């Protein structure tokens, strides 16, 4: 592969695959909000 092709492969991999990893880690660390708006006690977790 040429230098510029390798460079843009790395850019694409970091942006897209890195974005996937970052979004999975973000979701795993914060699966839900800490406090819900008013009335959340009336909505069950399965609803």
């Amino acid at each position: 592969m040429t230098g510029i092709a390798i460079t843009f492969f790395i850019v694409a991999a970091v942006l897209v695959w890195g974005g996937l990893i970052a979004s999975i880690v973000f979701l795993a660390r914060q699966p839900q909000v800490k406090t819900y708006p008013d009335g959340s006690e009336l909505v069950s977790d399965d609803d």
Partner: protein
Amino acid sequence: MTCAGGDDPGGFFVTEFLQTSDPGFSSQFVPAVLIPLVLVWVAVLAVLGSGIAKGVQRANIIFLPLLVVAFLILVVRALFLDGAMTGLNAFFTPDFSALGDPNVWIAAYSQIFFSLSIAFGIMITYSSYRSRKANVTAPALVVAFANSSFEIIAGIGVFATLGYFAFQQGVAIDELEGLTGVGLSFITFPAIVSQMPGGPIFGALFFGSLVMAGFTSLLSVLQVVSSAFQDKFGITARQASIRVGSALAIVSILLFSTTTGLITLDTVDQWANNIGIVGAAIAATILVIWVFRRGPELAAHLSAVSTFKVGRLWQLLVGVLAPVVLLYMLTQRIIALVTEGYEGYPLWYLAVAGWGTIAVILIGAISMTALRWKHDPDDFTPWPSADSLKELKK
């Protein structure tokens, strides 16, 4: 191993395998298409009839990992073919001058729009089965990045294989022909597979992946229709599968498994996607954001239940960028279809199969909306309430 098509895979696929005739509506079935299509519909209706958890969810849990593994094997195999690196150079070498061409940006927007199946109703339907307290935007990021991640892997596999094909033919990559849509999957790829070492395994993995991708996509689109009928008429998943699914299966088999099936499928797909879906997306964004002015409330709702917050930028993307770009795409496509026609098919045929598809979609949408709900949809208490969302914004 050699390709069943020998030196003319295109002629074999279109003429011998599909027995394609001139544009029209043939009643002559092609067994090689009819039998697999019936089998696929039986499997799809069985999955849909089993409901979300036992049907669609289970099918996706089985098929999607299998699809990823099969495709990864394909990509790794492709990387070791002669000429693969030439293909990857073509894939990853940018043409910066193209950035000044607005059509490239429109094409990129169109690509990600259809690739994420925006406005098909799939994400709204799937998310309706989640808890009302469920995080919405953070999983959406995972879905969008996962989609693009798989596309890069698929692109690497496809371009490495095309590099091999160009190497075999002694031509440059940009001189290869038949690289779009049906031609790429069913004519060019089989031709390449027939020439490469380990071709039968490669071919089985490729077409196996294609079947799994198609099956899960078909399930997602049909689940939208099934859920809509279940909600509107108060019927079960099994009833929706038998009544609605069977009707769709019959129409599909009658139209698409005959000697004119490929042409009809191609024409219906062209109009339904590029005019029907794009038109629906424009209508949805303009109505929600500009007519009913619910953008701020929607953004507040998403942020209230999600860990990734959205605000004015999200409203700008949904309310301005999306309708502007989509409207341009729609206008350009309508002008092209009206002035140039499509694939050289006769005008009467395009009027029936193309514009007729749009008429059927509109009549279906209007008549289904006019029918009475089994249970009043307004008999529902929204949460978070509009008032509590306003409080949160302060």
